[in-house]
């Protein structure tokens, strides 16, 4: 048990060091995010002309929401779906089956190593730079900061699990690009990254609330803004735990099926 923990810590460290070698790759990423955030800033600035309140958020809150949503995304985002999909398509998954470890845990650990790197070299610098250019609202109290940080960690896990499942789906379709794209669009739309969930019509909100996606972006952002606080914030964390359990179970079933039906090309 302790040994496994050391292994996963070692993997986190390794992936972090590994990413240091690809620093330059992230500069383009930062540029990309700056353009995205800039565009949304002007968009919402125009939409909010004349001090309105839409979907429970005023102009300042909306701009903060957009900035926080994208900065946090730069932390939790990962290519796990592509990695798992590639492992399946190229038969590399066979090499994983001869190792005495949990394939999923190894993937999650490496993703987390990457996420720590992204936080230090991507999310935090980007957040700071934006703040210097255009100050945005900071959380009101320490309690919402703590709750927000925990919720963001939960968001990482849920996003990783959804990506893992998307990767396993490649096993059934054998045409991966469609799966990756669908996952990306669903995540961006239903997580609240592009549009706060409170902006959707009632019937859509009812559906979205039954899905795990809003726990990745919308709910943590609302904790940041102080719109969700106290007992309600704890309920968000509880909801995240619930979805982590359900998605973990689902990923496990997919894994079991994939292993049983694994077909490696050649030989």
């Amino acid at each position, binding site marked *: 048990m302790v040994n496994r923990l050391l292994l996963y810590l070692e993997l986190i460290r*390794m992936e972090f060091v590994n990413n240091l070698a690809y620093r330059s790759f992230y500069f383009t990423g930062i540029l990309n995010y700056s353009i995205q955030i800039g565009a949304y800033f002007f968009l919402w600035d125009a939409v909010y002309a004349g001090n309105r309140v839409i979907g429970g958020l005023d102009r300042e809150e909306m701009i903060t929401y957009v900035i926080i949503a994208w900065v946090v995304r730069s932390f939790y985002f990962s290519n796990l779906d592509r990695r798992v999909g590639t492992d399946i398509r190229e038969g590399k998954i066979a090499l994983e089956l001869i190792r005495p470890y949990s394939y999923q845990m190894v993937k999650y650990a490496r993703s987390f190593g990457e996420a720590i790197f992204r936080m230090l070299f991507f999310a935090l610098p980007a957040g700071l730079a934006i703040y210097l250019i255009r100050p945005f609202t900071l959380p009101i109290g320490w309690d919402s900061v703590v709750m927000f940080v925990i919720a963001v960690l939960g968001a990482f896990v849920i996003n990783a699990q959804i990506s893992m499942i998307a990767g396993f789906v490649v096993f059934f379709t054998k045409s991966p690009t469609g799966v990756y794209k669908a996952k990306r669009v669903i995540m961006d739309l239903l997580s609240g990254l592009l549009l706060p969930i409170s902006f959707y019509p009632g019937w859509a909100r009812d559906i979205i609330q039954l899905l795990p996606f809003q726990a990745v972006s919308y709910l943590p952002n609302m904790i940041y803004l102080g719109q969700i606080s106290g007992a309600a914030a704890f309920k968000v964390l509880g909801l995240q735990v619930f979805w982590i359990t359900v998605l973990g179970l689902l990923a496990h079933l997919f894994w079991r099926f994939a292993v049983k039906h*694994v*077909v490696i090309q050649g030989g």
Partner: protein
Amino acid sequence: MKLIEARGLTKEFRIFSRSEGVMGAFRDLFHRRYRILRAVDGIDFAVDRGEMVGYIGANGAGKSTTIKMLTGILVPTAGTVSVNGYVPHKDRESYTRGIGVVFGQRSQLWWDIAVIESFKLLRRIYDVPREDFRRRLQQFDDILGLSGLLNLPVRKLSLGQRMRCDLAAALLHNPAILFLDEPTIGLDVLAKSKIREFLKEINNEYKTTVILTTHDLGDIEALCPRVAIIDRGKMLYDGSVDNLYSQWGQDKLEDIVKRIYMGQKPTSGSAGGGWDIG
């Protein structure tokens, strides 16, 4: 109790056969037709501890499929298999601690990181005590000459260098059984002989059981007193190499194997021993 024991081991693959033309493509949308390919067809196979067995067969004969079942990667369609006291595909996490696997066509080392980092990670994965790790690495280095390679990332290694590192990686945890799937494929004469020498020494010192598939009969001649020949999923011969020579009365293993692949039977009298004509 044999170390490896397989009975009636069978693996079938379901292959989707595509219909021709546009109409065919439409038909396939609603009704898929499958063809069953029996890659391994009821083979029996037993190996004792410390044996070195060569496993040969023409391309597509079912060698790799057998290896993949023995290593727990593929689940057999029928038959039983027990290796080192485990059912490979069932007790995967405990079973794989006791085996080492090398695929000649594919490296198991992490592509972007230095070889030594991969080794250190493997030490963690298999819980190898630090002292054992250091000692084995030293020993492997003596025979395989790894020292110049350890700080390079795998992508910068030549095929021969990579294979030496892969072999060392598969043995760091001192497995009871080493599975090698075409370990000398694409290697030059010198690299091959180095690897053969290494395998001999490992087998000698640690009594490691070695199962190796190959197309290079030089590997068999140098390493394996026993050879198993598979063709179209069926075991054609399983016995000593010496016996093969005496049955066929020829002096080149290559000629003998060529004849076997072509479906011929030995001409000289003693056609009994080892032949499994089913």
